[in-house]
Structures are given as C-alpha cells and as structure tokens.
C-alpha cells in the first residue's frame, strides 16, 4: 500500500459543515496507482452454478474502472461481492479474498454496515424510494446517526448540488421522488449514495435504463466524480467506457462455464491494443 495516505479527506468533517465534493483522493490518482480494492482469486457460486471463477484484480484509488463483457458473465455478481450484497442471496457462496482499504471484508468480524457506508452502490434501474426527495436523502443519514435537522439539510443540499440536481428540485424537496424524470431519479440515487460520504461507488449499468439525453447527463456527472471517488462502473456501452474510464476490465463467459476476467489494464490499452484475441473480438464487435 501507498505509505503517504491522504489526510485531506478526513480534514473535512460534517461538524464544520464543509461537506463538499472535496479534495481529490490522494495524489495524482491515475499516474501513481494505489489499489483501494484488492480482489484475489474471487470465486462466486449460486448453489451449484459458478458465476465467477478465480478473478484477481486491483481497483485503483480515485480512478474510474469500467467492467465490460457480455450479459451473464458475472459483472453484477462481482459488484455485489464488493459491498456484500451477496449476503442477501441465501445460496450464494464466495471464495477468495476481497480487501477494501487493506481489510478483508468477508471475515466474520468485518462490519457490513461500515463497509456499505464506505462502498456505495447505484443500480441499473433508478430506485428512489416512493417517499419525498428530502426523505430519500435523510433515510440513510438517520441510519448512521445523523439526526440534527440542520445537518441533514446541509448534507442534502450539498449532495444535490454535487449531482447537479439542486436547481431542478430545490423548490419541491417535499414532493415525491417518483415524480422526477428517469435521469433525475438516477442522479437522486447517486446523491443518496453520496450522503454517506463513501470512498467507493459501484455503478451497475447506471445509464442503460435512461434515454440518450439523460444518459449523457449522468455520464458527465460520473466523469466529474472521477478523482473524488473511486468508481467501478459496469457498462454495455463501449464508447461510454472509453470516454470516461481510466481502467477497463473485460469479463467473458463460455457456454456452461463460469465468468472469467480475461484482461485488465489501462482503458487506452484495452481499447486500442488488447493483448487477448477475445478482447479484440469483443471490442471490434465481432464477438459477444
């Protein structure tokens, strides 16, 4: 691990009311890659169906890592393993190690709540709760012991500004979040994840349920988050991966087999000079 840990992130505390997108996460993020999530020999089974086989991969701090590959190759499963949403699936068995900030997350003493605070998630379909916009943002905060109204309001405003939603909704915070458009709903979900000040954001095809305009807005937002958060994004849109990602990981699944990581590297490298013929075929649209 990198010895010069960042101190800037901690310096900003809620008490000073200074919650913002904040400083970049340590250093020149992508020139001097420091792994924040280390995945080692990760295997994942649903009952007797193996979804992922021996995936080893480092996710670098402050960078955007795109996961690409055909449907069913285990990208969603990979994300769910990182924030332990797989715990909710009764017959899901995980092998190997995942370390977040150097701590193994699948040991018995690791704390799921602390993990999920640190690792936020955004789903494919926007899932705002059918409550008011304000309540959507305050619910997770209540859960982590933030109860002062003024503090909640300050954080809500900040995250809404961060996702560029404040001007659109500031006069209707108490109306239902379901009245928002699809793109606004998805940005609200990102804002909701940001309320907990995560370090890592997992995004499972965040744009694929949106129309092209809304998709573009969300994509721009994700680019802006780069450097402030470590982002792992699943996308079927290769052009999008190319535009926003620093790193790319290519997953593949053979008939009746488990999903595998085929190739991982700098985005440019994966898209312009892939080493594996499968990757090249997928990128060029001749396979998958």
């Amino acid at each position: 691990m990198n010895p010069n840990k960042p101190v800037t992130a901690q310096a900003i505390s809620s008490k000073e009311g200074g919650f913002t997108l904040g400083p970049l996460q340590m250093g020149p993020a992508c020139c001097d890659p420091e792994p924040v999530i280390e995945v080692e020999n990760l295997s994942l089974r649903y009952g007797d169906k193996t979804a992922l086989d021996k995936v080893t991969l480092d996710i670098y701090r402050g960078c955007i890592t795109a996961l690409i590959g055909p449907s069913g190759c285990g990208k969603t499963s990979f994300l769910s393993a990182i924030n332990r949403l797989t715990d909710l699936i009764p017959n899901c068995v995980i092998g190997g190690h995942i370390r977040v900030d150097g701590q193994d997350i699948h040991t018995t003493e690791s704390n799921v709540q602390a993990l999920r605070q640190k690792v936020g998630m955004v789903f494919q379909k926007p899932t705002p709760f059918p409550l008011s916009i304000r309540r959507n943002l305050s619910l997770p905060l209540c859960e982590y012991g933030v109860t002062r109204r003024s503090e909640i309001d300050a954080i809500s405003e900040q995250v809404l500004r961060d996702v560029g939603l404040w001007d659109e909704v500031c006069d209707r915070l108490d109306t239902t979040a379901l009245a928002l458009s699809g793109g606004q709903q998805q940005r609200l979900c990102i804002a909701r994840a940001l309320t907990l000040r995560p370090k890592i954001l997992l995004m499972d095809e965040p744009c694929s349920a949106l129309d092209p305009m809304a998709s573009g807005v969300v994509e721009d937002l994700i680019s802006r988050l780069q450097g402030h958060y470590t982002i792992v994004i699943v996308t079927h849109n290769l052009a999008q991966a190319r535009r926003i990602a620093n790193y790319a990981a290519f997953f593949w699944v053979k008939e009746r087999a488990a999903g595998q990581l085929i190739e991982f590297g700098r985005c440019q490298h994966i898209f312009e000079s892939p080493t594996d013929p499968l990757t090249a075929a997928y990128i060029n649209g001749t396979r998958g």
Partner: protein
Amino acid sequence: MLKTNARRWRHFYLDRLVQIFVYLAVLTVCAVFLWILVDLLRGGFAHLSWNFLIESPRDAGRAGGIGSILVSTMLILLVALGAALPLAWTTAALLAEYVPATSKFGMLVRYSLQVLAGVPSIVFGLFGNAFFSIYLGLGFSILSGGLTLACMLLPILVSTAEAGLRAVPDSYRLSAAALGMTRAATLIRLLLPIAAPALAAGLLLGIGRAVAETAALLFTSGYVDRMPGSLLDSGRALALHIFDLSMNVPGGDVPAYASALVLVAMLLCINIFAMQLVQSWQRRNTILE
C-alpha cells in the same frame, strides 16, 4: 365488404350489451345501499336526538337512549384493536420479511390463520366464553368481549398487512441494504410507511367487522345495558342492542331503527376519517402513482 360490415355491427351491439350490463350491475349495487339507507332513515330518523345519543336505555331500550351502549362498543373496539394490532402486524412483518415464502413454519402459520378466518363468529363467542370468561375468570366483561374480537380480527389484519408488505418491490429492499440500512430499520422506516395504505385498509375492514359483530359478543361481553364502570363490567355492544331490540323487545322497532342508523353513520365516519388519514399520510410521505 358486406361481411366486414356485419361484423362491425355485431361488435357494436356486443359492446352496447356489455355496457348495459355493467351499468345495470352498478345501479343495482347502489340501489341496495340507498334502499337500506332510506329504510333506516324513515324508520329511525325521527327518533334521533341529542338525548338519544347520551342517555342510557330505559325499559329494555324502549325509552331512553344508547349512551352507555356507545361507550361499551367503543371500549370493546379499543380492547380488541389494542390486543390484535401489535400481534397481527408483528406476525405479518415476520411472515413477509423474515420467513422465506416457502418455509414450513410460514405455511403453518398462514394455514392456521386461514382456518381461523373461516370459523363462524358464534364459535368464537363460545370459545371466548369458555376461555376468557370462565377459564381466565374474566366473566362477562368488556375485556373478554374485546379479546374474543381480537382473535376474530387476527386473520384479516395479518393477511392484509402481509399482502401490503409483499407488494413492496424487492428493489427497495436491495437499495436500502446497499445504503447500509439494517433489516429492522428498512422495515420500520421504509417498508411500513410504503405499505401504510394497505395496513389502513386492513384496519378499516377490521373495525367494520368489530363494530358490526353480534354473535361473538353475546356470551363474552354480555348484554347488560348500564354504563360500564370498568373493563371488567359487562357492556352491551351496539349491534347486540339492535339485535335484542328487534328480536326480544316488543315495541322496540323504532329505537332499533335509530340505533342501526347510528351504527351505519359510525361506519361511514370511520371510513371517511381513515381515508383522510391515508391521504394526508401519502401526501406527506409516499405518493404512489
């Protein structure tokens, strides 16, 4: 050309026919309700007065009012809901959120509730009499009547609440989990508010049944028509009062009509009040579209 024309005519007439039947059905339903209402109003409205609502009945109900009866009815209802609601909603939460839908235990609980729902109310009355009145020594009292009603309401309260919780999409549970919310917090802060309209609907059904219940109370809360002094006193419920007046008291028809009118008005009020409650709740929290 001719053929398509014929078909078009046939469709037209079929459409009309279905329309007429639908309107007829709706009209019939409304007519039945109106008829009952008009009948009640004609028979009892003249007898209604402020004194009728607050005085205790005299001369077996031929004279006086229904003040003590109303108080007993409310007390029985409160006891029943106070006992049944916590039990029913906890059970529903357990069945919907904590027990897998296919588990043996869940099936067993659901099956028992189904059987319970099919038991005639007179049987609840006999059971309540044997268990609460005699075995637990509560005698003929508002308490035993209320608790008997609570048993009767359990199935309806549990099944409506469980259905309401199950209707909440799983994506909300997943999102809540991803935000680090515990299952308990998800249930209390998210799922119950979302399911509130369903809970309220079940509650309404329950209140409706409780207020209209006669047979289950006959042997448990009894038919003493004095003002109850405590929950351990016997108290006569409104529906039972109507039954008694019309079956056992010659010349009790007019007060029976008036009491029935009060009962119907009460049910209407409860309905409207609960609707308002749900609406304001939704406006504040969960406007579902």
